[in-house]
């Protein structure tokens, strides 16, 4: 029987009954949320005040929506990464796949004049395909996820440079490009706040993706398999859980989300940059880990990851608004990741 998934608020999950639920334990379940709240408070206290209203900049809805928008690419990557990490794997290729997909999206729309929707489908398909290769290498040939996705990381970056001819894809970059003046309207639409709502479609895309995946993880057979594989792969194999297929699909989905993130990247940059997304995989992994999903697999969930993305986005926004020097900023961010993992380790030992 698969392990009971440890997802967000266990208040709703059925406890095994024999445990005494202390106040500490209850607080502990909401640790991520509490940390998020504390960071939020910190932001309200330390950020400069708006000149007109006197309220902290951090509190303004504009700032909150801005930071969600700034982090929606990482959010999409982290959504896919959570699936992979739940199985106890890792995907280092998402940053490169993002770059490949951003370049391809710009090339299809600006270069070949495709309709944006067709290009989105094609690009996500390419991402899915790249992920399938990862999945086959890992699930069918038993390659270490670290190694398989490292290979894809290199190959996808090469592919991005190859299809673009080594240049940044933008109108008039090549004489044969269909668009010589401006990028399609879709680029601006994705990254401009919708009138009335004040939120960018790119941010909505991330929210939709993570909510959908939260449902998939918690309510479907596939979702339960993820936890089972991460909990004890050998036992799952013996008990007849379709390990290979589930794992393969996981890597494909992860890269598919990287493809979507690539579309967002191209729209935001207004160019298809073959170098885009370099190093993003590390931020995505950091968001997942800070949220509380265990790198060992089998524990965590989408809710945790959403909190992790917000915590990183908040901290980075606070440091940016405060004008903290970049060197100090990197040290603080490093310390936060280390401490977050340290806390998790205590949890595993204590459980």
């Amino acid at each position, binding site marked *: 029987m698969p392990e009971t998934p440890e997802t967000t608020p266990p208040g709703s999950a059925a406890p095994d009954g024999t445990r005494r639920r202390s106040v*500490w*334990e209850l607080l*502990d379940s909401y*640790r991520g949320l509490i*940390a998020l709240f*504390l*960071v939020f408070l*910190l932001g309200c*206290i*330390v950020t*400069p005040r*708006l*000149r*007109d209203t006197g309220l902290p*900049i951090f509190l*303004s809805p*504009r*700032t909150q929506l*801005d930071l969600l928008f*700034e982090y929606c*690419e990482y959010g999409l990557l982290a959504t896919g990464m959570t699936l992979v990490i739940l199985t106890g794997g890792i995907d280092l290729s998402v940053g490169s796949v993002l770059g490949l997909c951003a370049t391809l999206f710009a090339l299809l729309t600006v270069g070949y004049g495709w309709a944006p929707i067709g290009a989105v489908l094609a690009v996500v398909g390419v991402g899915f395909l790249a992920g399938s290769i990862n999945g086959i290498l890992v699930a069918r040939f038993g390659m270490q996820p670290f190694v398989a996705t490292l290979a894809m990381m290199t190959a996808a970056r090469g592919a991005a440079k190859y299809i673009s001819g*080594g*240049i*940044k894809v*933008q109108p008039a970059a090549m004489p044969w490009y269909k668009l010589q003046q401006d990028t399609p309207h879709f680029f*601006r639409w994705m*990254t401009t706040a919708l009138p009335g709502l004040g939120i960018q479609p790119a941010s909505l895309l991330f929210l939709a993706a993570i909510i959908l995946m939260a449902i998939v993880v918690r309510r479907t057979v596939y979702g339960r398999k993820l936890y089972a594989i991460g909990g004890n792969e050998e036992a799952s194999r013996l008990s007849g859980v379709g390990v290979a297929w589930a794992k393969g699909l996981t890597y494909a989905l992860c890269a598919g989300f990287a493809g979507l993130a690539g579309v967002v990247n191209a729209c*935001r*940059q*207004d*160019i298809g*940059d073959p170098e885009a997304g370099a190093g993003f995989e590390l931020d995505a992994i950091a968001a997942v880990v800070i949220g509380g999903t265990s790198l060992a697999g089998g524990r965590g969930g989408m809710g945790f990851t959403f909190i992790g993305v917000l915590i990183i986005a908040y*901290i980075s*926004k*606070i440091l*940016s*608004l*405060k*004008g*903290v020097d*970049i060197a*100090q900023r990197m040290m*603080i961010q490093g*310390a*936060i990741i280390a*401490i*977050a993992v*340290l*806390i998790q380790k*205590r*949890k595993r*030992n*204590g*459980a």
Partner: protein
Amino acid sequence: MNGHAQWVKWTAGLMLVAGAALLAGCQGSKDQGSQSTGTTPPPGKTGTATTGSTPAPGRKFVIAMSQCNLGEPWRVQMNADIEAAAKEHPEITLDKADAQNKSETQQAQVRDFIQKKVDLIIISPKESRPLTRPVGEAIDAGIPVIVLDRAIEGDKYTAFIGGDNRKIGLEAGKFINKTLGGRGNVVELRGLMTTVPAHDRHDGFMEGIKGSQIKIVADPDCQWLEPNANREMKSILSTQPQIDLVYGHNDPSAHGAYMATVQEGKGREKQIKFVGIDALPTEGVKYVKDGILTATFQYPTGGKEAIETALKILNKQPFEKKTSLGTRIFTKENVAKGGEPL
């Protein structure tokens, strides 16, 4: 679960938050000082700002600066020039940001500046297209923007200040033509071929030596990097018996080529002349002083001009929408007195 583990966990968590608060606090106290001096006091709240009928004198300005990266010495110099110029005007408070070579970061920085309602933004963009919209948003929010070095798309900005690489290449070409007496073998060490400055420094140079007997015997792409120039020059030295001059698209390239020649061990560095571009105090100018380079041509950062233009804009005085900066030549003869304008 045992209580001990819980305790440790929570302590660690609290330490994390406390640490962050502490860091933010240190920064805060430092920041509040500059913030309060930098922010314009709301009218009527403080007496000093509203005394006198002329609003111009005594007004304080916050100027925000987004630099695309501080990994290149030239950009470090640009920031230093801006700081030096700003220091002469106590009414200016600088709010500096380093985008770490990421367009996403630079976009966010510009939007943060808009949120903070700074008085003016100076930006040296990493890339034209990605920064075009954020700069436009600042203009829409009523914040003037000075674009430095790399232009943005269209004309939705307040002022542009940049160097003229074509002119610099042309001057280098004319100087080399004169130095070699119109004939000789030249090695051209190019900058990264996908960048506009590399093309301009090449095109200008070709125009400068047009009609002469000068032959380009090699022109590898060194991507602005000294190690690459060193490696390329070693191969060139082994295949070219006669080299009269090396023209580097930047000073580190020329220096790398010089070192390669020294490392060859045949003493050819005494016959070959080396010319570079950029003339940073710590690089090109020093190399000229040391007798390594025959000449270097300054690629000005525009930092000083940016602050001058900013003050004109803020004080509602007339200013140039586009400023093209000149260049200076540094040779052994004039390096002591700070080069000569061309």
